[in-house]
């Protein structure tokens, strides 16, 4: 399996797949130094010039879809079409300088072997170059630019990541040299997933689960964890409390690589956003830029799905909102979305309604567990 994936990865490397690495600070510093040298060289050449910054475009037009040939794994990735940050175009000059400013900040942070939050970075930049960074948004975007330039993850740049993810169930995590954490005795609050990707990378994983279940919502996760659902069906529960962050996806990916036979099943709301969350786990998203594709997992859609609707009470349906329709629209236009998923989206749009997982509580709190168990037993997932 591993080999197959690698080979397919290599195959796609030829197809101009671009990505950001998790790299050690020294290497990030080296990349920055190379940038400086390169800049100076071109500036100092016989025909001096100010070099443009080639950034991988973070637009859907530059996204490519890999439909797994040998595995079921599909993912979204960014191709190597670049957009340039050029000093010489007045409307791009600011963005150009911003990249260098942030690069300088990150370089110094890496030297100090520290990490900063994006907010701290904003304040530092606000203080030193207010005219360049009037808002947090400018900082955030420039960080993305820098990721796209240096091809290393945000985390590698010394920017602190927090994770909203939690995990529970039949999984034992062990940091080398530390006491193991048994996620089955973490109670309903589960075990918080660290934002430190290096740490996650080092974790030693042990599991006797048969399934991995992704839950969209914290509350549902809590219910299942409190009910110790993972003992009924040996499983690992994971939630990112909405759209997944990198760390959650990273850990999920690690678990799925470590235990490749575990089906990954997702329980999300029956609305476009729910599906979008599932898809972010499954394929990655263009918005996550170069860090996206690497953690694609073969997630299956357990529920809620169209054929579950008859058992939901009528009053639990809410009309779709404009935002829902927008998400539905972009889902439908996505090249990666499988046909049977598209059918569900069509059903949502046509019915004009949405329903949340909690609607299952209509049949009592314990119904949720039964519902999942039944679906698993019947292999009712797509």
């Amino acid at each position, binding site marked *: 399996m591993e080999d197959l994936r690698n080979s397919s990865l290599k195959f796609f490397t030829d197809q101009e797949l671009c990505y950001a690495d998790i790299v050690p600070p020294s290497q990030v510093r080296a990349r920055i130094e190379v940038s400086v040298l390169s800049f100076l060289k071109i500036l100092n050449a016989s025909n001096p010039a100010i070099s443009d910054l080639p950034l991988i475009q973070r637009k859907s037009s530059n996204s490519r879809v890999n439909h797994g040939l040998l595995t079921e794994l599909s993912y979204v990735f960014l191709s190597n079409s670049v957009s340039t940050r050029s*000093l010489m175009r007045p409307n791009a000059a600011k963005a150009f300088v911003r990249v260098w400013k942030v690069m300088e900040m990150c370089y110094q942070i890496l030297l100090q072997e520290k990490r900063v939050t994006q907010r701290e970075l904003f304040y530092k930049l606000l203080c030193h170059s207010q005219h360049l960074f009037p808002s947090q948004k400018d900082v955030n975007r420039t960080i993305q630019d820098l990721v796209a330039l240096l091809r290393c993850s*945000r985390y590698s740049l010394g920017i602190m990541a927090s994770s909203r993810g939690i995990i529970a169930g039949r999984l034992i995590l062990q940091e080398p040299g530390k006491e193991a954490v048994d996620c089955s005795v973490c109670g309903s609050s589960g075990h918080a997933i660290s934002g430190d990707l290096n740490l996650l990378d080092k974790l030693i994983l042990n599991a006797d689960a048969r399934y991995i279940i992704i839950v969209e919502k914290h509350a549902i996760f809590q219910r299942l964890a409190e009910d110790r659902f993972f003992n009924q069906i040996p499983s690992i529960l994971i939630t990112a409390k909405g759209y997944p962050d990198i760390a959650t996806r990273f850990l999920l990916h690690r678990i799925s690589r470590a235990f490749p036979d575990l089906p990954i099943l997702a329980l999300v709301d029956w609305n476009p956003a729910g599906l979008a969350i599932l898809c972010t786990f499954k394929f990655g998203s263009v918005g996550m830029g170069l860090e996206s594709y690497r953690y694609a997992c073969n997630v299956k859609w357990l529920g809620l799905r169209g054929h579950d609707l008859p058992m939901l009470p009528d009053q639990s349906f809410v009309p779709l909102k404009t935002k829902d329709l927008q998400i539905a629209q972009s889902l439908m236009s996505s090249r990666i979305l499988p046909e049977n998923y598209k059918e569900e989206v069509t059903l949502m749009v046509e019915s004009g309604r949405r329903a949340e997982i909690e609607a299952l509580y209509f049949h009592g709190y314990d119904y949720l567990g039964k519902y999942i168990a039944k679906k698993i037993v019947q292999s009712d997932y797509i």
Partner: protein
Amino acid sequence: MEFSSSQKLCLHLISSAYQRCRLSEQICRLSVILTRSSSSSPSLRISISDTGIGSSLEEFQNLRVSFTNAADNWDGMLSIKTTSINDSEIHNYQINLKESGSSRITSLTSDSKNGAKFSGSEVCLSSFVNSDLLLAEIHSLLEKVLILNIPNVAIQLVSEDFDVPESRYEKVFLANTCKQLPISASSLELLKFGLGDYVLKHGNNLSIKCNSCFTSWEDLKVGVACCTENRLHTELVMEAVIVISNMSIQNTTCFREYGDKTEVLYFKDFSPCAMSQSSMKALKSIDWKRYGLHLGGIVELDGTALLEWENLPTDTHIDIVLHSYLKQYPMVIPTPRKMSQLERSIVKRAVKLSLDDLKANHSGDFLSSRALQIRNYAPDLAQSIAGLILSSSDLDFQRECFSLLGLQSQDVGTEIMENSIKEKIVSVIETNDKDPDKSKEIAPFLFEEDDHIHEPDVEFQESDFTYLDPDLDMF
């Protein structure tokens, strides 16, 4: 040519005399003498004499008068003496401009030159015009003519009232003498220094240099250009000179007639002249912003074009002179419509070229607003790069950077390094700006990776981020 007053006729006659001097290759003298006497009638006698190439009768053939001012009841009589270098006698004519047909010219008996070799003309008329006003106008004309800086003509202006003892006024107008120009100097060269002198005299209202405002010629920023156009068997020449001067406004007692507006001095065939509409349009159509200038508008005042500037520093003044002439003399004038097209394109070209010249001579100045905008980022960029270099703990890296920057010792401070980088960046920006076409070329990439598909000019539209668009800032 039709004149609406005897003053205007006078100014034309002076211009013609000047032309005759210019065409002569000898040092010439042009005298304009106004003599007033209450005993005679009309009271003012005007004599315009020159030692130029001698005039032909054709010059006067086309002159017409249509006086509208009742007080200007001149009899229309011109008396002309003229002789060419090869003539053996001095011809005398009397022309009645108020008549037409063959009767208007009366040949009088010629005077013998007694074998002497000389040429020259004298045109006299008597008029009722106010001598003071006429004097002022002639004065202004001659001052402008001086800008052309033709070296072989000395002009003498004399005004005298016989009834008033010691009322004689005399002024000599000589081409710029403080500069040792070579004899072979081109007319553009001459014009350049002529305008420079004019500027140093504050041009439009002082006839003497004011040493308190400008210390030297070298403080002026000058751009010149000459365009030619070969059309209809003649060559049209357009010379343009632009002078930018700085005059500290605080301690000056000198004021310009048009304030901070620019009077465009316009010459046609070596005479001061009102600007044509097509030339005005040409000025309007120039992309001044490319040179960091912001033209507010063009005002026309008594045939004078005034350019109004926006955002011009208060102590900066711009002077522009344009001179168009046909190489052949006398000229074959193209049809007016053709001429106007021609003028428009040639004025535009000449002014642009002179601006380019100005920019080239004064690097860092007259940058386009675009370049200025970009240049503003240079300190920030330099600071960041210097910061990156100096904060590095990798000595090899630092050494390499130092050597790239041509800095000797590693002990140079942040400031020196920043300045060095900044200068380089600025220089690239400025070079780029001088040659606007060059900037359109694709700049080299920081990392050359040839598998990239370049998609220029798409930045900043990161709106269509994704199909999912989660709240990306999860960190």
